[in-house]
């Protein structure tokens, strides 16, 4: 039924990364690694994206931007934190301006290890995130069906109370 895992569209945001992981993210799109065979398209528009790729540590300046992009994405959505910095702040963790990993600002679904992360492991992270999206969509559909059932029951009760 579900088709979201067949066409996971990506958006990529570089929170203060050293660009090492970003170059590897771009390498995933080249003919050598070919992310498109999984149906991935890099959109650049959060309203069209399903999976949010974040590289680098979060600092106090870019945390609101990260949150803003995340909030614009439609549900269900998945976040992939790529590299050591996105996990914990990495080598920049002790800096006065660094807040830490991506999880300090938005919920993370998949962590991709490495400094810099390898393209193969980034692709693995994207495919895992697509599987998580599938589960989230299923859970969301169940929750909506339950809410509809509740909603159908409750107005009747209210109508009954009024008469």
């Amino acid at each position, binding site marked *: 039924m579900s*088709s*979201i895992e*067949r*066409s996971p569209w990506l958006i990529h945001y570089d929170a203060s990364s050293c660009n090492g992981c970003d170059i590897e993210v*771009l390498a995933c*799109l080249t*003919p*050598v690694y*070919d992310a*498109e*065979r*999984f*149906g991935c*398209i*890099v*959109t*650049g*528009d959060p*309203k*069209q994206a*399903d999976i949010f790729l974040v590289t680098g540590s979060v600092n106090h300046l870019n945390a609101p931007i990260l949150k803003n992009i995340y909030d614009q994405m*439609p*549900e269900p959505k998945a976040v992939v934190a790529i590299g050591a910095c996105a996990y914990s702040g990495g080598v920049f963790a002790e800096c006065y301006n660094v807040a830490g990993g991506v999880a300090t600002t938005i919920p993370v679904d998949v962590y991709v290890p490495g400094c810099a992360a390898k393209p193969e492991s980034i692709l693995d992270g994207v495919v895992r995130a697509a599987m998580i999206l599938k589960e989230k*969509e299923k859970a969301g559909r169940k929750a909506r069906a339950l809410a509809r059932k509740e909603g159908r029951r409750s107005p009747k009760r209210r109508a009954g109370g009024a008469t």
Partner: protein
Amino acid sequence: MKGIEIYVAIAYVILGPIVGGLLDGLDRVITARLQGRVGPPLLQPFYDLRKLLTRRIAPVNSLQMPLIASHLVFAILTGVLFFYGSDILLIIFVLTLASVFLVLAAYSTGSPYSTIGAERELLLMTAYEPMIIIALVGLFGVAKSFDFYAILSSKMPAYLYLPGIYLGLVYVLEMKLRKSPFDLSTSHHAHQELVMGLTADMGGPALAMVELAHWYESVYLFALVLLFFSSSWVSAILGVGFTYLLIILLDNATARVKWELALSFAWIVALVAGAGNLIPFYLISRGSP
């Protein structure tokens, strides 16, 4: 003969998206093979469309969805009129109106990216319209009719009489199908300078409708190409197939141009290849009645 038109028009409404989606999927597979990679499955555009339709997202404003829906309706109507064999002048008006609705939808979002995308789409419209009109006038000259079926059944090898106009039409099809080097307004390829351009701030069902309209458009645009090769089945298949592959090859082999170049070159091509073909053709055909 009468009566078949309405069935073709109904078949276009039902089968148009299937053919258009397959053309899009085949395009993506061939593009991937040209770049030496595996690429997505053939049915990827349908997976994308189904996903986009299930995405739950609030539209940016109350105007966006009606405008995009109008774009889709007028794109379908253009094809219906085309395959119903209506007056070609009416078809050009409806074709332009469909594009105008998309531009208005992009303007309505207020995003700087979609605003620039909308401006570029308007420029591209001014660039390709003259050549499309010249192509239709040329086909009228060959078949002495503006009717799709009359041109189709005239069995005149239009590509032999109108080679310049055919080349000019391929040139502007690159714009109409949003292919490189003229994918200024929006592009499927990653990392363009305008984020998503025209389709920025269109998510979920809104983008699905734009995609669907694009599939409908590509079907009647290739039907227009078919008119140049309608003298026999073999030439029709070879001609349309060649045009399709040529457009994909150009898409992969060229870099995006600036809008000044796109506009001026399209008019130069329309003038040299289009009018340069049309004027001698009319003089010769008047000389030999």
